[in-house]
């Protein structure tokens, strides 16, 4: 059999080999067997010197053609197998298998609300300050124009460590602490834990407050309203209406109680034809207390009340969280049930 014939028969031989090749490895084995360094094609070509110089170009040409054909066949088969394998892989793919989810953590709703509020005020240029939770009577009461025997002390039932040391009943001591350290102008936010001797459905003996204080020259009640409107609309949505009504706090004058339009019923007093339980049909919910810093407070810290005016506000973080997330029971905040916590991811 001539070499040419032998070369040409390789094509047929590979074809029948490939017919039996069902894996990429088998195809690779065939490639080595036919086209490898010691493969069939190479072995035939080793016999080239047997031929006369005139015959060699013809054989060489045929060898090239055969080599291309073999390569083509191998590639074709390989592609076919590869796409079959890919198709098989896709067919077996189950998108509904569970994901390998990493741990899911959560921030306490109090932290979430506190952070949101502090961030808003940081954006407005306020500094965040913190201070002790166990306080002197001076910072908690006296400096805030709440002398002993003032009936307003009844507004806050206090937990005492000694007659003069107590658990702060509000974050307002940070007003005095900051002003004693710093001259105006100043703008601070003081978040933190506060304590009252009170425990029922709507009161826990510990809760969180955020205190705000801005002192400067010619600071006005209108500016307090602007600040709180901006803040409350950012927390509760731009449609939120803000209502100011007179109230009393010993450390502010005038003092204001702030209501927002009920976020449950939108101020209509009715949800799904039922009386709104959040605002008790009034359309308003109390959200915070505030006012213009009382001149007595300025005197206690050595500021000139003629030169400086300022505003202060304090709000309960849990109250905001309850309204924002629709949490009905205050005590849940401190049980740390993960079924509760995991809702605030």
């Amino acid at each position: 059999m001539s070499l040419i014939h032998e070369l040409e028969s390789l094509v047929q031989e590979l074809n029948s080999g490939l017919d039996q090749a069902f894996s990429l490895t088998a195809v690779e084995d065939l490639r080595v067997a036919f086209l490898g360094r010691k493969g069939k094609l190479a072995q035939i070509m080793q016999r080239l010197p047997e031929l006369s110089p005139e015959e060699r170009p013809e054989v060489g040409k045929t060898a090239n053609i055969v080599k291309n054909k073999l390569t083509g066949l191998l590639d074709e088969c390989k592609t076919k197998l590869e796409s079959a394998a890919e198709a098989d892989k896709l067919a077996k793919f189950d998108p509904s298998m569970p994901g390998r989810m990493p741990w899911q953590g959560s921030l306490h709703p109090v932290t979430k609300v506190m952070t949101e509020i502090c961030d808003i005020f940081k954006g407005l240029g306020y500094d965040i300050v913190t201070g002790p939770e166990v306080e002197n009577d001076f910072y908690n009461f006296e400096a805030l124009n709440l002398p002993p025997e003032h009936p307003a002390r009844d507004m806050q039932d206090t937990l005492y460590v000694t007659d003069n040391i107590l658990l702060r009943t509000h974050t307002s001591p940070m007003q005095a602490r900051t002003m004693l350290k710093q001259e105006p102008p100043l703008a601070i936010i003081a978040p933190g834990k506060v304590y009252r001797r009170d425990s029922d459905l709507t009161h826990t003996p510990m809760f969180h407050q955020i205190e705000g204080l801005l002192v400067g020259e010619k600071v006005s009640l209108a500016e307090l309203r602007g600040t709180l409107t901006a803040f409350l609309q950012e927390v509760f949505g731009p449609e939120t209406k803000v209502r100011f009504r007179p109230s009393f706090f010993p450390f502010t004058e005038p003092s204001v109680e702030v209501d927002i339009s009920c976020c449950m019923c939108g101020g209509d007093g009715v949800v799904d034809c039922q009386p709104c339980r959040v605002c008790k049909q009034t359309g308003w919910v109390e959200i915070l207390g505030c006012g213009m810093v009382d001149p007595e407070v300025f005197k206690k810290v050595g500021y000139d009340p003629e030169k400086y005016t300022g505003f202060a506000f304090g709000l309960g973080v849990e109250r905001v969280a309850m309204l924002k997330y629709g949490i009905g029971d205050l005590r849940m905040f401190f049980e740390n049930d993960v079924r509760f916590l995991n809702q605030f991811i």
Partner: protein
Amino acid sequence: MLLSINWLKEFVPFTGTIQELDDALTMLGLEVEEVIRPFEGIKEMVVGYVVECEKHPEAEKLSVCKVDVGEEEPLNIVCGAPNVRKGLTVAVVKVGSVMPDGTKIKKTKLRGIPSMGMICSERELGFSEEHDGIMELEEGLVPGANLVESLKLDDEVLDISITPNRADSLSVLGIAREVALAFDLPLTVPEYNLVESGDDCSEEVTIEIADADKCYCYHGRILEGAAIGQSPAWMRYRLVAVGLRPISNIVDVTNYIMMGFGQPLHAFDLDRLEGGKIVVDTAAEGEKFVTLDEQERTLKADDLMIKDGSRSVALAGVMGGANSEIHDGSTRIFLESAVFQPASVRRTARRLGLSSDASFRFERGVDQLQCPEAMDRAAAMLADLTGATVRKGVCKAEPKPWVAPELTFRPQRCRDLLGVAIEDSFCKATLEKLGCVVTGTDSETWTVVPPSNRLDYEREVDFIEEVARVYGMDRIEPVLPQVKRTLEARNDDCNEYEFWSLIKTWGCGLGLNEAINYSFVGHTDLDLFNLPKDNRITIMNPLSSEQDAMRTELAPGLLQNLRHNLGHGNTGLRLFELAHIFEADETSDTTVRESGRLNILFYGDRFDSAYPRMASEAEYADMKGCVEHLLAHLHVGEPSFTLADEHAWMSPAVDVVVGDQKIGTIGRINPEIADAYNAKKDVWFADLDTDVLRKLYVSACVKFASLPVHQSAWNDITVIAPITLNVQAIFDQVAATKLPLLEKMELIDVFVPEAAEDAEQTRNLTFRLTFRHSSKTLKDKDVDKERKKVVYSLENALPVRI
């Protein structure tokens, strides 16, 4: 403060709706908490007239009545009251109506005779405790008419929250003033007509005020020939409607005037006052005194008393004494109307835990100018209702007469503070409407003299508030201010809030649940953790013994959370909490040192999800890795972990140290402690000091290191070491050889082969050593050389084989 709308209408001709009143008062700062309908329970009752009344043929104590209730036929009602008789006007509940306690009245038969309703006693109507017979109503009421309407009951009552500064509003009169202001109405205060008779009695009881600072004025009137009894129905209904218990005509009148005008009054039985005088003086230290609620009180030298010639007869402004109280046989009355120092009354009332309607008003301040008038009104009313004659003259002493302060007001200051362009004329009109006398309005600074009922007007700013209140706080247009700050006050340091926020974000991002627990626990909780007692802060007046100590560790709270969650079927927990712990510290200005702590708790299931995760449980490596992750996150430097010698509540307990600073301890909660919280598996815990961490974090700086140019080469070695040898010893030994080319050493596998019976238990530790040269690529022989150094060093220094 409970305000009856009907009563209010006697003081001001208000004709609007209750909603309008509610809104107006709330927006004036008198917040209406609730609209109460005190007679809601009897709204279905009707007036009945007993047309016939006969004894029940079968039962001696029952009467069979025919009662006209305005229907065609009178109702047949069987009644058991002894006082039921023909011709009585009575209160009737018809069949189908409901009693205040919710009982529905049904058609019934009593000893064979049908009864179509019920005739009510005072108790059943809620007017008093009287239940010996049915209530006899005044004659002339129309049978069948609605009872509540016929009796003109105060069916709408507002519960108004009065802030401590608004003492003036603790009366119908006070609120009427506000209503008049809000709706621009005149005041129509009821008239009274006091008729005095007999000789002047003003010297019969002399008034001595020993402590003029504590008693500003004291007025007394003498009434004679009083007949004590029940006060008239209208007064009793009204007192019940505003939450007071009717007692007797004399006491009821003093309460009625107090509720109407805000002046607390007290009626003594004059025959029981000894020595013809009243002395207002402080008590003797330790003196015992029985108040009219029959409680014996122990007094302090500070308590202000009303005394007669020989003994104490009342706690001034708080409560009368049992020894001088009006009783059934009283005929001569000494009626007291006084003003006491607010702080003094408050101190006594608070110390004795005895807050009365009187003390509540005195503590906040009463109108001294009105004090005698209120007494006269009461005297006139007593004369009317008890038949007493009012003696001529007043026994009085007024060591500290009311002097109106002269205050200033600058309209421009008002505009500046409110940020609203309010006209001078509005300011003036407002202050005048509130009873102030305003002069000097042509200058920038006005003079304002407040009325005697507004003790809260002390400064200019109080007037500014009033202008804002009347103008309408809600009309003030919002303006967003520019926040000005000084460069000096700028503070870029990471404060506790910011640092904690950073850690919280880390914890949440890593997959932990943030917990927040109360700062107080019980001493017993701290005892359970074997914590020292001498540094604890005890709460003087805790709500319960479970909350009587400030926590010196966060662990008890987190363990309580573990118990709670296990109780709800949870099987895996990863909690963290950031909070202060509290320890006694004499050097602190609050006597307490508060330090920041981060605690982490791992328990049970390592993963929340099952497949494709393999079920496994949290162990030491999880907690250690978590802490290492945090420290890497904070760039505070490489930590070392060493077994602590002793720990009160963790075992094992491992100290975490960075440099020479201990930042905390990690480990396992002692099983007996864990057991107390129902934890059956290991509870892994980290207790880290965030104050130390914050200092390290603030001083840490992140520096970029150039990326290596040349490739690294690695080589694994397996060290066969006794199982008791810490892995750290191997790391340390390799580090001690100080190989400049060794870049990294990692433990990549641990295998514990089964040991022969008498042989020492070993484990095979495989480490990967990564070498790198900064200026060339290492060849195999270089690496081999380095490896040999490691092997040599380990074999020489430690009981290991390679």
